[in-house]
């Protein structure tokens, strides 16, 4: 079965979404994953956007979370206050899963999407939080898309934009954050998860043809690889959804 790496990553992430989940997603591959899940394992999941659109039909794939394509046939089109309240409010927030990306991630799943180097005069500036810090602060489960490179998996992030488990067990509670934190990191090489007790990242599944060794070589910190197994490749039906339903124009993939 032939597939691209981006297709594999989208499907690995889609599998993290449970039926009935309310899915917060951003642009690009995270939107592809969320849309794919609705046609695969989570037909009753609900996609919503920080811009205020809830349960959009997504007849065409949006290029941004403010793309008019997110408005079409939604249950409701509100604004930013409404969408973030949906996550901060425990009644609905408990059912939200967030999909995020970042420039850096540390072993506790803390994310940097702001800058590299000094904050005031950075070596490299990125977009900044957007809604990412809010999502990571509010929701119980998050999937993170990352590129597996040493500089992107540093011992400590240059700027902590979005909270993971901060400095370990109990830290979120201590700081006053809601329970939660990242549950999966989907990279170009593997699926990483976090240990329930230590809150540290570990290798869950390596992609076909990728060795755990190669994965460790692409991180500044080491992780437990003892539980690692090979990831199940995309099925024909999963790929059909991606290619024919979700992104036939190949705008993202």
């Amino acid at each position: 079965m032939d597939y691209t790496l981006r297709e594999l990553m989208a499907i690995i992430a889609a599998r993290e979404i449970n039926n009935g989940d309310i899915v917060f997603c951003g642009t690009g591959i995270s939107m592809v994953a969320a849309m794919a899940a609705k046609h695969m394992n989570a037909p009753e999941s609900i996609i919503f956007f920080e811009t205020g659109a809830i349960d959009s039909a997504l007849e065409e794939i949006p290029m941004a979370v403010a793309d008019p394509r997110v408005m079409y046939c939604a249950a409701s089109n509100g604004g930013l206050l409404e969408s973030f309240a949906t996550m901060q409010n425990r009644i609905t927030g408990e059912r939200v899963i967030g999909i995020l990306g970042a420039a850096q991630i540390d072993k506790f799943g803390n994310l940097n999407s702001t800058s590299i180097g000094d904050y005031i005069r950075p070596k490299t500036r990125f977009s900044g939080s957007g809604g990412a810090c809010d999502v990571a602060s509010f929701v119980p489960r998050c999937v993170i898309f990352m590129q597996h490179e040493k500089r992107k998996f540093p011992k400590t992030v240059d700027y902590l934009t979005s909270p993971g488990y901060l400095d370990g067990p109990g830290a979120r509670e201590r700081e006053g954050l809601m329970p939660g934190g990242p549950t999966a990191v989907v990279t170009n090489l593997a699926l990483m998860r976090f240990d329930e007790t230590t809150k540290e990242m570990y290798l869950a599944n390596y992609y076909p043809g990728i060795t755990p060794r190669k994965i460790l070589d692409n991180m500044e910190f080491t992780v437990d690889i003892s539980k690692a197994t090979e990831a199940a490749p995309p099925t024909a039906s999963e790929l059909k959804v991606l290619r024919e339903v979700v992104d036939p124009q190949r705008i993202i993939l």
Partner: protein
Amino acid sequence: MDVHADKVMTLAEAIRTYVKDGSHISIGGFTINRNPMAAVYETIRQGIKNLHVYAHSNGTGVDELIGGGCVGAIEIAYGGNGRAAPTCIRFKQAIQKGTVVHEDYSNYQMSLRFHAGAMGLPFLPTRSSLGTDIINKWGLSKEIREKDPKLANRKLVVMDNPFDGWADCKKVVLVPAINPDVTVLHVQKADRQGTSRILGLTFADVDQAKAAKNVIVTCEELVDAADLRSEPEYNQIPFIHVSAVVHVPYGAYPSSCYRYYDYDPAQLSDFAKAAKDDGTFKAYLDKFVYGVKDHQGLLDRIGKDRLEKIKADPRTGYATGLDRK
């Protein structure tokens, strides 16, 4: 001000009257949607400098304002523009070169700050960003803040929940209200007094307007008050908040305006390409901003065919099947 007055004026006049060097400003829309681009271009054309910009995710407009040399400082949540620019290029360069003072918040925090301003409150609480560098790292020093009466004395305040754990909450972050000197919005419909109707997502536009000392509304359609007043529940901004009304068809171009036109992927990527280099960016500004008299001049350079391509499909509100590669 007689709030019932006819507030219709030219865009040049509206910008000249309400946007000054050093003004604290916010613009409406979100990334590639309903940015008040005609007003942004006119601001650049008038050579206004040293603006203090408050932004959640106003990518298209903010990046042009920075590129046009209008911005001195920015409080911002997101300097990206969707697939058109993962990180806005002039924004990125300005911060890396240190030419623009910047301070980071989250999108929800910026929305709450406008909401607080609209409500007449000094701050609003949130449970976002506890334990992060958004709390720890300030772009505007306490010294700068204490000097400028237009700035709160603190970026934010972390406080214990005085209702002892009520709502399962131990701590909150208080973020200070924003009351811009002027907010500029592009809406689908407005009347001559300024009552405005936005179709589709409102983003944070309504609070941005109500928080501002002056509001400039540019609109696709200038309509009779009676048209809007037949369904008052759909007019998010009553005229009492508005200072100037300008009729500017395609006023959000190249960003989209729901039910009127889509974003122009070609123009957005041309901008992104031009932005990469000072020389090519100057050429871009010369062609589309300095080289034209007004927004119609820019639209003429884009041409009827391309505007035709992005015309909204009445069924979906966007240009169904538009080539966006």
